């Protein structure tokens, strides 16, 4: 829109309304953080207090001392990092093969991967559970990790980005005697470093946030992920709101930090997944 319309009263009103909406939208987040920093008595005190009367970290200390949240953290970090690394690794190499190599069954493989978008992973919970039980992986990291390795979108995105790299690079490198693995590691991946970061962040966030599968496969107190575990604290301590919200803030912290650090990449990855997924 042209500039002369920007400072009319109507425009100013719309801008202020946007800010008001944004503040209201983010208010539950603010309220959760503030509540977690109050004492339990202040939390249920009458009246609306937008800031704590007495700032305290006691809820956080309580949760750290009295629940296995640090173990859950470890489980979440290990499983989310392994899922991210493995998904990126197997998808990049498969995407490279689909894009750069000619072999029989290539079209079929690509068709199967595209078709697999249609299968809702939630429909597979029963057979995934049976499979993990057969492997003896219930309540283990492997059990949490394995079914989450199926992320077809990553392979497709890699194939499309590798397709767009000019063939000259490859020809020249092959002339110099480079192998395909060094081509992938030295040229194709570094040239798509931005895409790789974006895909890695969204995979990590997805794995960290996943509820249904870890909830089914990791039920013992020491094998849960943070995302699942925090609901246990809620059940165990009933109406201790500050403690409950302290666990929520702790569970959300890694993904929120990841988002704030890599805002641009997260945005990019949402676009990437939408353009392929839909």
């Amino acid at each position: 829109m042209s500039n002369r319309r920007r400072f009319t009263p109507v425009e100013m009103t719309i801008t202020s309304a946007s800010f008001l909406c944004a503040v209201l939208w983010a208010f539950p987040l603010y309220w959760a953080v503030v509540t977690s920093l109050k004492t339990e008595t202040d939390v249920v005190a009458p009246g609306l207090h937008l800031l704590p009367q007495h700032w305290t970290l006691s809820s956080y200390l309580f949760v750290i001392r009295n629940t296995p949240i640090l173990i859950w953290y470890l489980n979440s970090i290990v499983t989310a990092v392994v899922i991210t690394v493995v998904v990126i690794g197997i998808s990049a190499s498969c995407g490279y093969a689909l894009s750069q190599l000619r072999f029989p069954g290539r079209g079929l493989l690509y068709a199967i991967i595209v078709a697999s978008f249609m299968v809702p992973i939630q429909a597979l919970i029963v057979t995934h559970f049976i499979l993990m039980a057969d492997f003896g992986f219930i309540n283990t990291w492997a059990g949490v990790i394995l079914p989450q390795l199926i992320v077809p979108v990553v392979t497709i995105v890699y194939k499309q980005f590798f397709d767009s790299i000019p063939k000259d690079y490859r020809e020249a490198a092959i002339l110099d005697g480079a192998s395909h693995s060094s081509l992938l590691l030295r040229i194709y991946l570094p040239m798509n470093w931005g895409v790789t970061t974006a895909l890695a962040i969204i995979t990590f966030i997805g794995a960290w946030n996943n509820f249904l599968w870890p909830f089914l496969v990791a039920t013992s107190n020491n094998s849960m992920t943070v995302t699942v575990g925090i609901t246990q604290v809620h059940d165990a301590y009933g109406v201790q709101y500050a403690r409950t919200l302290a666990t929520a803030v702790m569970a959300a912290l890694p993904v929120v930090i990841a988002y704030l650090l890599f805002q641009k990449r997260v945005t990019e990855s949402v676009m990437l997944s939408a353009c392929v997924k839909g």
Partner: protein
Amino acid sequence: MAPDSLPTDPVPAEHFKDAAAAVGRRAARQSDMRVAALFIAPFALAYLVLFIYPTLKMIELSFTNAPLIGSGHFIGLRNYFRLARDHLFLGSVIHTAYFVLLTVIPNTVVGLGIAILVNRLKGPARSVVLGCFFIPYVLPSTVVYQIWDWVLDRQFGVAQILIKAITGQPVSVFDSPVWAMPMIALVTIWWTSGFNILIFIAGLRNIPDDLYDAAALDGAGRWRCFASITWPLIWPVTALVMTIQLILQLKIFDQVYLFTDGGPFNSTYVMVQFIYREAFEQNKGGLASSAALLLFVVIAALSVIQFQVLKVRGAE
């Protein structure tokens, strides 16, 4: 590559390069298959074991009376006949449809509205406002649950100020069959609209500014601009967002399980929860698999439509 460094002798150098490239290409083609096998193997193995096998196994189980762990007998289509008469299952289909109705179109409208608001802003104001709307999208469902369970708490929840202003009294929203599903839908919109906002902002950016300038010169008002420029040009994106939402919201489980566990009086009991409960609480792997297969068929059909929408979008 010594010949390349001799500027006085360019022609042989080119010959050499072409010949070498041809040799290289031939060698590359011969080794392609072996390399391809190595590059694909890890992905293919994961896919076979963790995706194709479980899918086929689900189809097989749906025709048996197997428990969750252990084998059962082939019983033909009996599971499906049972589902057709099972009030809990039929209810779960209806509740899922109700949830889809409450979320898909409102979430798309909210996404477009906020995207238009954010798109007007410039500089840091824009990133801050966008951040406020987007952050909920990166949170785990359990965190969303804990935040809103507290905000909507009947006794101490801050949202009860608003609810009291509207209804005259505090309401325990997740204990009321009337309030529960709309509230879960509201929380879901708050949680997921960040995704839609981003897609819409990208779509809005593709609309050329000259169109609006020309319309402004012709004296077109704000609403006229929206109706004749923004809406028709953003429509393909809108269709895309709606199909993505439709497929996503059909798979609802987390919010319902956490907020209400399907209650009160099964008023929020949805399809994935039916699958979960039959398999993991009732120990009926076969019946759960047939419900899962039905969900699978519905979503596969919708995905085909989604691909068509994408194709239309690509063609434009």
